[in-house]
Structure formats: structure tokens, C-alpha cells
């Protein structure tokens, strides 16, 4: 472990100071000694902000990998029975940006059956090379088969970075493949940048709080990141696609699986708040479920869908498909009006890319105002009924 306690400097003052400094409660001072518990997250706050020299961090010499052996920024094409999930195109746009910094090619990996149409679609967005694992046995998503194909791709091509959409499939496949290669994976990145040394800079909300963390894989390749739908913008298509295709011959042993699919039933098209242009979102400022009528009426007048924060789902007021945030959906509407939402980053990271954010909250210090374009400091119970009335009047006059 990297933290070293210099006992000669430990006393009542430094001990107590360190104890209160640790945000994870992992340091305890007792009888002239400091103890570090398993709660330590090695955030090094005690090293950098604590009394000087009491706790130091010793770096260990590591065998460094040769990063030049790994070339290319790869996007996993999320294809489900012929339909490419739109997050794939958003990731291609980002991959092109990232690859241009280090002059790497942009790859896509396709796993499925009858994927010709999807492959052409990927090429039309300017992918340099598409690796295709197409076989009847890969028609239905299967974690073991797909991981085997992905493994073959990584072993042979050695891509530097791999971007995966945080869909149901991506969230299961990316960690499985990353674990097979004992490499790093950062989930639900909200921002990605590339360093000249090919380290992928991954930014995401962290520690479950209002904190962003910047994460890198300094000594592992490939570097995996998952990104949700609607975080990045889809690029425009290129006029003359010049990318090439490699069709990989599937080996029988890749198709072995301990999982058998009995039945797949398409769900009736459900409300998807991610697709809405206008959203009215409500949070804990709502005093009673009866007041939902007011919220629904406003949404109705604006042709909007109603969305909510996590506490309202936990309280059973809404079904989870209405939830915006890290544990719900990411949305990017043209307009979102938030009513009585305080704006924990858990929530805002799921909506702060919206075109226009109007936040109404009676607490002038509410964190939602950090991301809003219009900060309306007032009571939703005053404003919303009057607003509904005004919209109705306006419509009546047209």
C-alpha cells in the first residue's frame, strides 16, 4: 500500500486533524497512533492537505507498457437485429475527434448477423475500418459469444481506446471484456479528451456526490469507456466514405455458450423521455401527489413529457422510466423546465446538455441554478398555476 505513516510526527493535534480531514472516515487516531481502515480510497487528501509529512505516499516502480503498440480508437457498434443504436453514431463522432489528436485510425467492431446494411451505415459516418463478426449464431446477443469475438479483435488489432454505448448490452459487455484483459473501464463518461501520449481522459461524476472526477489509465491498454445515449452529438455523414471492411471468419469455439434464449418478446413502445423535445421535470419540491395534476397540466399545455428525480421514484410516485439522472435516463431536449428540483449531480449529469434549461426553485442556493440558463427563484405553487393560465389565454387568443 502506498500510504506511509510517519509515527514520529503523530500527536494529538495532527492525529485529530487527519481524522477529521478524511472524507471517508478511514483514518482514526487513538493512543498516539493513526490507523488506516479498509475504507481508504487512496484519494491522498491526507497527504496533500493534511499536516505536512505525517502521511506520505510512496510511488511504486511499475513495469511500463509500450503504448505505441496500441493503435486506433474503436467504437463498439450496438446493433440489435438489424437496427444500429444511435449512440453508436454519437460515439463515432467523438472517436474521430479523439483519434485526430494522436493521428490514429477510427475503427468499429460489429458483432451480429446479416449486418451488411449496418456496416455501410457505419462507413458513411467516416469510420476508417470496420471489423465484422457476422454469423447466424451471433444473431441474438449472448454475453459469452460476444465477449469471445471482442477478445479476438483486441488480441489481433490492439486498439488503444474502446468506446461502448451504455445500453443494456454495452453495460454488460464492456465490463466483461475489460475484465478479460485486466484493464480499466470508466462507466458513463460525460466528457472525453485525448492526451498526446494516447491516454484517454475520462470525466464522470464520482463518489455519488456533486464532484467530477478525471480518470486515466496510465499503464493499461486498451482503455474502455462507456457513454450514454445523448451525451455527445451525432456527426454528419461524409460525402465519400473511404473506409474498408474486414470480415472475420468465426471459429466454432467462440460460439459456445452456457446460456440459452427461450423467448424474446418485443415490448410495446414505451414512453421514452430521452426522445422528448420538451420536458417538465419535478422533484422533491412537490408537496403531495395531488399536486401532480398541476405538473401534468403544464406538460400537457407544452406538449411535454413529465420526468422526475430519483427520490420521487424511490417514494413510488413515478415509475422509473420517468427518471432523469445517473440511475435513470439521460435527456437532451430543446427545453426542460425543472420544478422544485435541487439539482444533485446525480440528476444534472442526466440533463445538463439540454438546449434550454429553465429552473424554478425557491432556494437561491439550489445547485440546479449552476446548470440552468434561466434561474427562477420562486415558489412553484405560485408560478406554475399562473403560467398555465397565461399559456391557455395565449392559445385562446390565437
Amino acid at each position, binding site marked *: 500500500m502506498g500510504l506511509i505513516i510517519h509515527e514520529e510526527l503523530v500527536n494529538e493535534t495532527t492525529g485529530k486533524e487527519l481524522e477529521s480531514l478524511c472524507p471517508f472516515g478511514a483514518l482514526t487516531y487513538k493512543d498516539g497512533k493513526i490507523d488506516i481502515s479498509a475504507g481508504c480510497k487512496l484519494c491522498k487528501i491526507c497527504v496533500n492537505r493534511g499536516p505536512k509529512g505525517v502521511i506520505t505516499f510512496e510511488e511504486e516502480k511499475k513495469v511500463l507498457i509500450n503504448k505505441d503498440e496500441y493503435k486506433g480508437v474503436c467504437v463498439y457498434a450496438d446493433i440489435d437485429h438489424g437496427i444500429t443504436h444511435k449512440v453508436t453514431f454519437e460515439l463515432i463522432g467523438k472517436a474521430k475527434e479523439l483519434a485526430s489528436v494522436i493521428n490514429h485510425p477510427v475503427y468499429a467492431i460489429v458483432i451480429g448477423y446479416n449486418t451488411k446494411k449496418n456496416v455501410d451505415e457505419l462507413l458513411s459516418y467516416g469510420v476508417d475500418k470496420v471489423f465484422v463478426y457476422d454469423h447466424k449464431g451471433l444473431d441474438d446477443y449472448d454475453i459469452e459469444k460476444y465477449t469471445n469475438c471482442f477478445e479476438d479483435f483486441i488480441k489481433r488489432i490492439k486498439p488503444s481506446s474502446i468506446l461502448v454505448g451504455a445500453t443494456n448490452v454495452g453495460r454488460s459487455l464492456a465490463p466483461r471484456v475489460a475484465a478479460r484483459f485486466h484493464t480499466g473501464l470508466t462507466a458513463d463518461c460525460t466528457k472525453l479528451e485525448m492526451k498526446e501520449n494516447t491516454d484517454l481522459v475520462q470525466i464522470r461524476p464520482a463518489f455519488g456526490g456533486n464532484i467530477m472526477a478525471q480518470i486515466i489509465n496510465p499503464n493499461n491498454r486498451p482503455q474502455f469507456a462507456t457513454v450514454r445515449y445523448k451525451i455527445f452529438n451525432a456527426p454528419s455523414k461524409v460525402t465519400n466514405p473511404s473506409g474498408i471492411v474486414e470480415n472475420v471468419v468465426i471459429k466454432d469455439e467462440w460460439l459456445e455458450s452456457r446460456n440459452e434464449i427461450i*423467448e424474446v418478446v418485443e415490448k410495446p413502445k414505451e414512453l421514452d423521455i430521452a426522445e422528448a423535445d420538451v420536458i417538465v421535470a419535478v422533484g422533491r419540491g412537490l408537496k403531495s401527489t395531488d399536486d401532480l395534476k398541476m405538473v401534468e397540466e403544464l406538460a400537457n399545455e407544452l406538449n411535454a413529457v413529465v420526468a422526475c428525480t430519483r427520490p420521487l421514484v424511490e417514494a413510488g410516485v413515478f415509475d422509473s422510466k420517468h427518471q432523469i439522472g445517473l440511475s435513470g435516463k439521460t435527456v437532451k431536449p430543446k427545453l426542460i423546465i425543472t420544478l422544485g428540483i435541487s439539482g444533485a449531480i446525480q440528476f444534472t449529469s442526466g440533463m445538463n446538455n439540454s438546449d434550454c434549461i429553465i429552473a424554478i426553485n425557491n432556494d437561491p442556493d439550489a445547485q440546479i441554478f449552476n446548470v440552468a440558463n434561466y434561474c427562477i427563484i420562486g415558489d412553484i405553487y405560485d408560478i406554475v398555476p399562473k403560467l398555465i393560465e397565461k399559456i391557455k389565454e395565449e392559445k385562446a387568443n390565437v
Partner: protein
Amino acid sequence: MKIIVCVKQVPGTTNVNVDPVTGTLIRDGASSKTNPYDLYALEAALKLKGEFGGKVSVVSMGPPSALVAIREAIYMGCDEGVLITDRKFGGADVLATSYTLCSGIKAVGEFDVILTGKQTTDGDTAQVGSELAEHLNLPHVTNVKEIFDEGETIKYISNLDNKIVTGRIKKPCLICMDGDVNTPRLPSFKRKKEFGDCKDLIKMITFNDVEDKDESHYGLKGSPTQVERIFEPDKRNEKEIISDGDLALKVFDIIKDRKFI
């Protein structure tokens, strides 16, 4: 049938901020709770045991204070608990966490099914279950809402974004339960009185108990990802603050100007 359920103790509040002066993390309150998503996995395991018989072990990795979460699970009905704890395991990212859980579970012994929650409320990554399955070389499924024991296999119903998949997975296997799929039972007061601190039911696993003694696989050393810096989220620079006058009219004007009416 032997079922293992993985649980994590998470902060009771998600209210963490950066101190503007010192740049350090401020976490208000020291309260903690069992990750709410894990309760669905616990309930699913106890229901399975009720219907088909067997034994349920709850496994957690974390500081000694995580014993609270293990005891809660035992009061709910789990037969025994395991805490994987060691300073050497601290500072772990997704890879090192899942690898440590794998080593700890191997030290516990044989099992048929591992159940996990969908994600935690303090990391929200939803990745540890899938990585654990890979380390243990188990087949796995995610977003599962119902499970049935069929002897050699488990039949499951998985609730994906646009479809419902019914499948059959060979034991031993790992199943990530979805959120909101059942009503987790409350801890029983009777069991609490009976088992108290559950001393005889909980086993501690430390670095000395795991088979792989290579320290570079655990904790910070075993973590490929490194946090370079932490910072406050961006604030929007161009914004308008409106706090007096006819607020409803002002909101109306904004919406009308932007042609949403």
C-alpha cells in the same frame, strides 16, 4: 442450492461537496445504509430459498463498518455472512474490486448462484457484477426481474429497454437483478434478538485468506484507472437570474420567445 448475494454499504446521503477553500471533499453525516439495489437481490435470493430450499450467504467487501449491512441481511433471512476486508484492498477501482470479490468468494467455497444488485447508489457504474462473472468464469445475465430454479439451470426473465428476454442459464452462474423487481422484506426483529451481533455467523476474509497473494492485483495497485483530479462540475456562465416581478409572466415570455407555445 447455495446462493451468494453481494451487497455493499453506501453512504446514507449522496450530498458530497467540494470545500471551495481547501478543495477537499465534504461528506455530511457519517450515516450509511445497504445499497438499495442490493435489497432486491437479497429478496430474490430469500424467495428462491423459500421455494426451492438451500442456503443464502451474504458477501460484502469494505471496511469493518460494513458489518452493519451484513447483519441487516442476516436479520432479513440470510444464513451467514462474509466480510472481505483488508487495508490492502483499499483504493480499488472496478477491476480491483471485482477481482477482490472473486478471490474472497473463492475462499468461501462452492456455490450455485451469485446474485447482485443492478448498481450502487454511490458509484452508479453497474459494472462490478459483470466483471466478477468474468473473473470467476461464470455465465451471467443482467437486468433480471424473475428467477426460477430448474436444478441444473436457472430460468430467468430479463427486462431490457425494448424487449423481455426469457432464457435458461447453466449453474454455476451470476445474475444481476434489476431494480424495483420485488418488495424487499424488512429485517426481522425476532432474528435480530436471536442473532444479535451475528458473531458466529460472519466470517472475515483478509488478504491472508485469499489464494492469490500477489498484492499488485488488489487495491490501488490492482486498479488500472487512476483519478487524476477531482473538481466541481462546470457552472453555466451565461445565465439569467430572475427573482422578482411577475415570475410566471417572465417564464411565459421565455417559453414564447423560444416558440414553444
